């Protein structure tokens, strides 16, 4: 009796990227909300709720939100990476800013670029 084998489903890197990036930003949003700043929470809520709603109601909106989130992540990573490079040539005395661009901070920036790229090239199979 022959056994039928199915190929393993492909890893959905876009969905993984989306989840990781959302979790990172939700943590950041909650931290700032507890400090009385709600802008980031507002942004993350719009994206997350918009994705949940549009998943079953409008593929166009869903893809638009995904692409927008991808662009945002790329822009964030790019801005921070550029600042980090600039600070190598023009060091600043502000400790708080320079500490945000230590090796861990720079790792976040690069990771955001990668995640942003993964989310941006996503297709309709990706779900949250």
């Amino acid at each position, binding site marked *: 009796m022959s056994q039928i084998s199915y190929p393993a489903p492909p890893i959905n890197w876009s969905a993984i990227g989306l989840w990781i990036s959302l979790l990172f930003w939700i943590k950041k949003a909650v931290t700032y909300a507890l*400090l009385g*700043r709600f802008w*980031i929470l507002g942004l993350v809520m719009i994206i997350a709720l918009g994705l949940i709603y549009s998943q079953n109601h409008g593929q166009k909106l869903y893809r638009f939100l995904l692409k927008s989130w991808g662009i945002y992540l790329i822009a964030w990573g790019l801005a921070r990476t550029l600042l980090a490079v600039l600070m190598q040539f023009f060091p600043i*005395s502000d*400790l708080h800013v320079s500490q945000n661009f230590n090796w861990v*901070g720079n790792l976040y920036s690069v990771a955001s670029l990668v995640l942003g790229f993964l989310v941006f090239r996503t297709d309709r199979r990706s779900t949250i």
Partner: protein
Amino acid sequence: MLRTLLIFLLLVFLLGIWYPIFGQQAQDLSFTQQDIVAYLSGEKTANDRHLLKARTTAAERRIARLYLQGWMEELQVKAQEHDYLQPNLHPAMDFLLAPYRGTNLYGILPAHTESPEYVILGAHYDSKLGCPGAVDNATGIALIFGVLQKLVRIEQRRKNVLIVFFDQEEEELIGSTAFAQFLQREEYDVHSVHTFDMVGWDGDGNGEVELGAPSPFLLPFYEKQAERLNIPVYISRGGSTDYQSFLKAGYGVIGVNEAVSKGDFSPYKDTPEDTYDRVNFSYLKQVTNFVSATISDLITKEDDYYESN
């Protein structure tokens, strides 16, 4: 002959008792202050063998805090850490940067009578990047310990005294802003807040002291002692130091420092040359005595004492 010898021995005996008790106490203040400034500005190490070149990075500030904790416990004041997070100065920066993270250090010297009120004495312990910060602000810290040495000996304290060392003053008063919020959140009954920043320079030698933004009910106490000790004082309304955080929060405040707004302040401020040897310790001692006398008055007398007498 025997009588003379006995009198002589008695005198030696009395001197032996007197010197360690009273002679030592008289010298304690300046020795302690020199020790504190020397350690905090990297002039010398303590038992922990750390040489603090500055008090800027998280590691340097932690070492400074441990040292200050040691001094607080020496004076029987239990040291407590106040960890905080603060948002960035501009909300747009929150998107790019993590929040400020720091630690204030505080302790309470309780009143002898049942009192809900707290007189707060504060000075920042951080310094600019790469600066030893001897005048700015190891001197403010040394002043507080000098005052505390006197306050612990008062037997009729009618108000609690809370001493606090602020983190991140050099980064736009972040530590004191967080502490003002902490006081409000914990509903402390704050009588007044006194902050000390840069009290180690007197270029023209006139011993002048600046009183920053004093609340009207505090001024008579400072003026009375200034008059008694013959210390010239003047009032300034500007200044960017820790008392501003408490002023914004609505507390009664006063800032004490060298004559900054008249231009008589350390020219080495925020430079690597703000070192131990630039500190005028006799000026620091003079201001410490002035503040000690004022705070002693404040915690043993009624608020309207000088207005009604």
